């Protein structure tokens, strides 16, 4: 029970801090900020566990009764849930093309949309431009004169994806 309690408690603590920061000002690098928030909590909590559990006990929380194996268990649970949340967050941060299609059809309601009107509604949202600026923000692409060029970080990321697709024997398309 302790593992589930502490893992969930730490995750919600991170979520509340994330919410407060977002209500004050939405960061430019949202994914990076989320990683910083959630991993800082883990580091601070580990510090408390190692050195300041007596003070926590005064607040009515029993933290020093956790064994090493329980700590590892909480660590695995917390990391998994945090990474899943950060992956899910990308759906909130940016609109995927499929999401845009569904939203346009939801807005149209029971009358639906014919091909012309659907494409007209979709093309009014500059998805390609949005993705390019996202790549620039993430440091994967830089703009030199008029051209966009992938950075070392972008090439490394791409190579991992290509290598993995080769491992699966998947076609080298995508996108």
């Amino acid at each position, binding site marked *: *029970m302790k*593992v*589930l309690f502490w*893992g969930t408690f730490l995750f919600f603590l991170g979520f509340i801090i994330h*919410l407060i920061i*977002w209500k004050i000002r939405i960061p430019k690098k949202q994914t990076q900020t989320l990683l910083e928030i959630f991993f800082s909590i883990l580091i601070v909590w580990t510090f408390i566990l190692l050195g300041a559990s007596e003070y926590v006990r005064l607040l009515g929380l029993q933290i020093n009764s956790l064994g090493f*194996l329980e700590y590892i*268990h909480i660590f*695995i*649970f917390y990391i*998994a*849930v945090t990474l*899943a949340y950060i*992956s899910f967050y990308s759906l*909130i941060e*940016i*609109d995927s*093309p*499929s*999401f*845009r*299609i*569904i*939203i346009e*059809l939801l807005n149209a309601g*029971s*009358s*639906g*949309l*014919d*091909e012309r009107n659907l*494409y007209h509604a*979709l*093309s009014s*949202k500059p*998805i*390609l*431009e949005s*993705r390019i600026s996202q*790549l620039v923000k993430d440091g*994967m*692409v830089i703009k*030199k004169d*008029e*051209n*966009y*060029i*992938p950075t070392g970080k972008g*090439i490394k990321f*791409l190579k991992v*994806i*290509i290598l993995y*697709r080769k*491992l*699966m*024997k*998947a*076609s080298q398309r*995508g*996108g």
Partner: protein
Amino acid sequence: MLLQEYVHIFNPVIGLVINVSLQILIMRLVLPNEVVRSFLISFVLGFLTVLSIELYVYFTKAIPAGDFLSVFITNTLTYVALGYCYSSFLGFGESSIRTRILRELHDSERGLSEKELAERYNTKNMFENRIKRLIDNRQLILQNGKFYIKSSFLATIAKAIVMLKLFLLGKRSEFD
């Protein structure tokens, strides 16, 4: 006994290893280029591994039912979260626009301008592919020349995402 405890704690990670290994094997040997189906099959098989280890530990260690249930919930949630992360990783190679842009830029010698990228990456084709995929998955229907949403589950998920966007970002779309 200690080994058994470690196996119990790392059970979701073992499940993920099974999920990933089987997914690669299924794609290479049984379902070529079927990323989604191979993932779903291997995800279920990985979960069955997690479940088997949980039951083995429950019966061999004779732990109280309450403790077993809480660890089982923890490990199941961890496994589902890890599986979701893996599916997102697969999505980067399968349908991510950013990966496609990076590939186009990497393949060109001197990089590409926004206009050149738009010529190579036809957004109309991109939407056509997505619509075809949604129709194939029976999530959309084309009736009398008009598109409609067929899956109420998908509509609910999309509405939930819009609510979350409003709650966290204060807008319904990145383009608002």
